[in-house]
């Protein structure tokens, strides 16, 4: 569905060198990315600010011309075949509206039907579905400029889907939304992805989006792919482990060792201890502990993907 081979985008920036002189410098925003995305996949694209996520998305949608490399979406080459491709993809740029600012939301949808030449019956059916799933009935007649960000984003999602695209590109669809709106957007996308009719590619800063939606995670940093796989594979690769936190009746004895686990922290006058589980299950670890010290309370903490990703950015930062 989507193929990128050694895709590259260079930008020239002018930097000051002396009072009048400027020096040209070439910066690679995307530095040789090769990826293949199959039909029906849901792929999350993450990376720190300036990593090249949006630039990649813009090359896939025909907005930007690649400096070198090959790219094909739905079998088309984005820039030369931009208008043909536009009929087959949907795009939501979180910070660029597709809607008409001064017109009621419903009017924007009617306009898009003409722009995308969608048969009236198909348009009706898709709009009805989005309206009920996204709860849009009460603000369909409100001018877009008066909508809240959450309402507008629901409008943008609908606008991108009314022509039945094969691929949906979302650039930070949840940016700036409150918790409830984020949930609404996520569950809508999850439902959309579950049908398998649409290939979904989204960039985000919010890892909860990825955990909720995407089987496949692509981490990009400094224009390069630094991870491509499942979230679990990411945890395995960076050996992020579950940890066991216990509150003890008595202080933890000096020199205490738990087979298959490492003691990470001891606090509260040795009444609370945290173990990282390496090669043992939680059950065995608890059993081993209880045998040595009476346990008052315990909890098992799943690895935090934010930490893993932060670690990942830091490692690739080094030159």
């Amino acid at each position: 569905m989507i193929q990128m081979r050694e895709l590259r985008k260079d930008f020239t920036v002018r930097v000051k060198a002396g009072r009048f002189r400027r020096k040209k410098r070439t910066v690679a925003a995307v530095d040789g990315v090769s990826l293949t995305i199959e039909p029906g996949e849901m792929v999350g694209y993450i990376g720190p600010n300036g990593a090249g996520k949006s630039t990649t998305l813009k090359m896939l949608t025909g907005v930007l011309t690649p400096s070198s490399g090959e790219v094909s979406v739905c079998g088309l080459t984005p820039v030369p075949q931009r208008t043909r491709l536009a009929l087959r993809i949907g795009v939501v740029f979180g910070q660029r509206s597709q809607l008409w600012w001064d017109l009621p939301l419903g009017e924007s949808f009617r306009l898009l039907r003409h722009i995308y030449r969608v048969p009236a019956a198909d348009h009706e059916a898709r709009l009805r579905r989005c309206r009920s799933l996204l709860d849009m009935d009460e603000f369909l007649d409100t001018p877009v400029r008066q909508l809240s960000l959450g309402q507008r984003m629901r409008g943008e999602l609908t606008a991108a889907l009314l022509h039945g695209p094969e691929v949906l590109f979302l650039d930070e669809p949840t940016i700036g939304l409150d918790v409830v709106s984020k949930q609404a957007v996520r569950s809508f996308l999850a439902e959309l992805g579950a049908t398998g009719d649409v290939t979904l590619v989204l960039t985000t800063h919010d890892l909860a989006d990825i955990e909720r939606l995407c089987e496949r995670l692509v981490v990009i940093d400094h224009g390069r792919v630094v991870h491509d796989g499942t979230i679990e594979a990411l945890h395995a690769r960076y050996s992020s482990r579950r940890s066991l936190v216990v509150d003890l009746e008595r202080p933890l004895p000096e020199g205490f060792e738990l087979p298959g686990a490492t003691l990470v922290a001891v606090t509260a006058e040795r009444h609370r201890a945290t173990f990282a589980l390496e090669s043992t299950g939680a059950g065995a670890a608890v059993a081993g502990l209880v045998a040595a010290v009476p346990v008052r309370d315990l909890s098992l903490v799943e690895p935090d993907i934010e930490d893993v990703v932060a670690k990942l950015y830091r490692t690739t930062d080094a030159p």
Partner: protein
Amino acid sequence: MGELRAYAALAGAQFRSVTSYRTSFLVEVIGNMGATVFDVLTVFVLFRATPEVGGFTLEQAVLVVGLSAAGFTLADMLVGNVDGLKNYVRTGTLDAVLVRPLPALPQLLLMDMPLRKTLRVVFGFVVLSGAVAVNDIDWTPARLVLIVAAPLAACVFFGSIFVISASLAFWWVDSGQVGSAFTYGGRDFTSYPVTVYGEWFRALFAYALGFAFVAYQPALALLGRADPLGLPAWAGFVSPLVALLAAAIAAGVWRAGIRRYRSTGS
């Protein structure tokens, strides 16, 4: 066919958008006539001081300014707003236009069409009609074609100049008002017979850039006057070709510009 409906829908949306602020729209429509009225008045004022300018009488000069005003006001309404491109490029909002299944330029023009400029166009054509009435034109079939084609060619020519100067923004984001030297400057230049200008200035604007073919040469051809500067009589009839050439150049520049577009972060 489907595309035409799409364009009609875009234009309709723009109409409903501007008319949703009704009073401000009416005020703008009337206020906008001012500029063009003054351009034409200047010509009349000039002729109060002297009976002839550059070898042309008032009636003949009005034909020149009429052709220029009709073509320019029409181009300014239909294409002039491409000037806003620099804002789209600077803020990166051109992205939203580029992901729709229509060519970018017609979309931009229809989305921002300044309908408040309608009265100016009417005024431009009124001046042209008046000029045709006061001049004693010997109507041949060729001249009948020319009186229709010349303002349209002028419109295409000015439209191309608008597109080319707006495209500067793709290479040079802070292009500011540089383009206006050629658009509004061109309008002022074409409002007078080119005989009034100094030699090198005329060589550059009138012939190298082609502004003589907007109003001056067609006016001579309509009046049946020999060109005091020596161009043959048919020079006025090629103005549509000059306009088409300008349009082809504008299309090329635009296309190159779109490929240069670099959007903005996120």
